[in-house]
Structure formats: C-alpha cells, structure tokens
C-alpha cells in the first residue's frame, strides 16, 4: 500500500512553492535538532541544507512507508551525528552538566514524598495560572533552555519525540536503541523539563 501525500507529490512534480512551504514549516524543529549535535548556528544551517539536498536526491526512493517528517528528520539526525563525530576532536566530549546528570534513579526529588511514599510536597497547581502564561515568550524560552541543558542522550530523544513529533517506534529505529531505553530517556527528559517549568512558574 502506498499513501499519497499531496504535498510530497507537489514537490516531486517540481512545485517550488510547495518546497518552500515545506522548508519553512520544518525549519524551527530542524534547527533545534541540528543544534543538539553541532557546535554553532552556522554549522546547523549547513547540515540542514545538506539534509534538504539529500531529501531531494532520494525523493524517488521514498515509498511512503514512513511519514515525510520521519524520513526528513532521520536524514538530518544522521547527517548531524556524523558531522559531530568528525568534529568531536575539537569539541569537549562531555560538558560539566552532563557529568553531573544522573542517568538512573528517581526523576522526582525524593524529599517531596513522605514516609508513606505519598506526596508531601505535591506539584503546585498550574490550572489557576492565567492561560497566557503558557503562551508567553518567556515560558517557551524556559522550555528551550531546559531542553538545551539536558545531556545529549536525553535531549535528542525529547527533540525527536516532542519537538519534531516522531513516534516512539521511529525514534527507536533512528537512534538504534531499545524501546525501553527510548521510554526511559523520554521520561527523564520530560521530568527534568517539567521540574524546571515548575520552578519557573512558581
């Protein structure tokens, strides 16, 4: 079975406007993903350009078994990762932040639970906050900063899942990790970003 994606068909047939729309729409998430691997904005834009070139070159091989989004972000992640490997001797291997981040253990400060293992200090309600708070530039900047501070193995998963919108199975394939590892990383990443939001919105 082949699913026909009208947007993809338009690009295939040479519709420049359709291609521009596609590149504009996916750019913000592509930039976030590329920046997880390369050292600066210029390098990120280079990789994004290379990804689109590869996308076009392989367009006739794309059979619609995955979504266009998955295919595109797969190309980008692979290019960005191999570029990072080439550049890695110039980049410190881990930042101090990553060294300090535990990869196991609970994701919520254990002091927030009482001796009965129930919440002693539950998360303060967000429903009483004005709706605009969740749409403000400041809040979104806080979310970005929280994601940027994650160690790369967590950051790449939350970027692919929650920012780029890939499915769990797709991320498992793309990063060649086990389904349970994918879930653990996603959980740790989301929990860390939620905590930072809690602190910010307090």
């Amino acid at each position, binding site marked *: 079975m082949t699913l026909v994606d009208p947007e993809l068909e338009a690009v295939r047939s*040479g519709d*420049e406007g359709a*291609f*521009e729309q596609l*590149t*504009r729409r996916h*750019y*913000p*998430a592509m*930039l*976030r993903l590329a920046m997880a691997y390369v050292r600066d904005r210029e390098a990120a*834009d280079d990789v*994004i*350009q290379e990804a*689109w*070139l590869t996308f*076009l*070159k392989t367009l006739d091989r794309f059979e619609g078994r995955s979504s266009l989004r998955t295919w595109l972000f797969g190309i980008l992640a692979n290019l960005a990762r191999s570029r990072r490997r080439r550049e890695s001797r110039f980049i410190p291997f881990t930042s101090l932040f990553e060294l300090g981040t535990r990869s196991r253990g*609970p*994701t*919520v400060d*254990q002091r927030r*639970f009482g001796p*009965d*293992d*129930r*919440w002693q200090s*539950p*998360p303060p*309600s*967000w*429903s009483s906050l004005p709706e605009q708070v*969740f749409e403000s530039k400041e*809040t*979104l900047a806080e*979310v*970005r900063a929280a*994601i940027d501070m994650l160690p790369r193995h967590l950051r790449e998963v*939350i970027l692919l899942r*929650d*920012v780029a*919108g890939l499915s*769990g199975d797709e991320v498992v394939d793309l990063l060649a990790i086990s*389904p349970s590892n994918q*879930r653990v990383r*996603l*959980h740790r990443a*989301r*929990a860390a*970003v*939620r905590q930072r*939001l*809690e602190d910010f919105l307090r």
Partner: protein
Amino acid sequence: VNCRQIVELMTDYLEGTLSESDRRRFEAHLTRCDGCTEYLEQLRTTMKLAATSADQPIPAELEAELTRVFRDWKGQP
C-alpha cells in the same frame, strides 16, 4: 502502589506500554490522588510546550540557498 512509584510510570502510561492490570491500578490511583493527577497533567503541558518551543524562522539566506538547490535538482534530467 504509591505516588513515589506512580510518577515513574507516567511515561509508560502515556506511551501505552503498561500491562492491562498495571494500567487499571495506575488509573485507580489517579482517581484518588490530586498530586499525581496534577503531575500527569503537567507532563502533558510540558509536551505541548515543547512542541511549540521551536520558533526560529528560516533565515532568508538559507531560504534563497534552498531555492537554488531545488532549481538545480529540478533542472536535472
């Protein structure tokens, strides 16, 4: 099951990977725990915010460059 355990199962719950019986226990806990209900709701909000957090528009130079790439590709036999 207690809150300490439930919070660590939230992503498995959202991913739909809990067993049928675990899912039932998870949901039963939520019906009587405001703290965990709020926590789950906050994770959902976090996911939504992450989805809208990328907002840098494409730079004009890159857009022009990509148009050139597209025309080259189109011009090839």
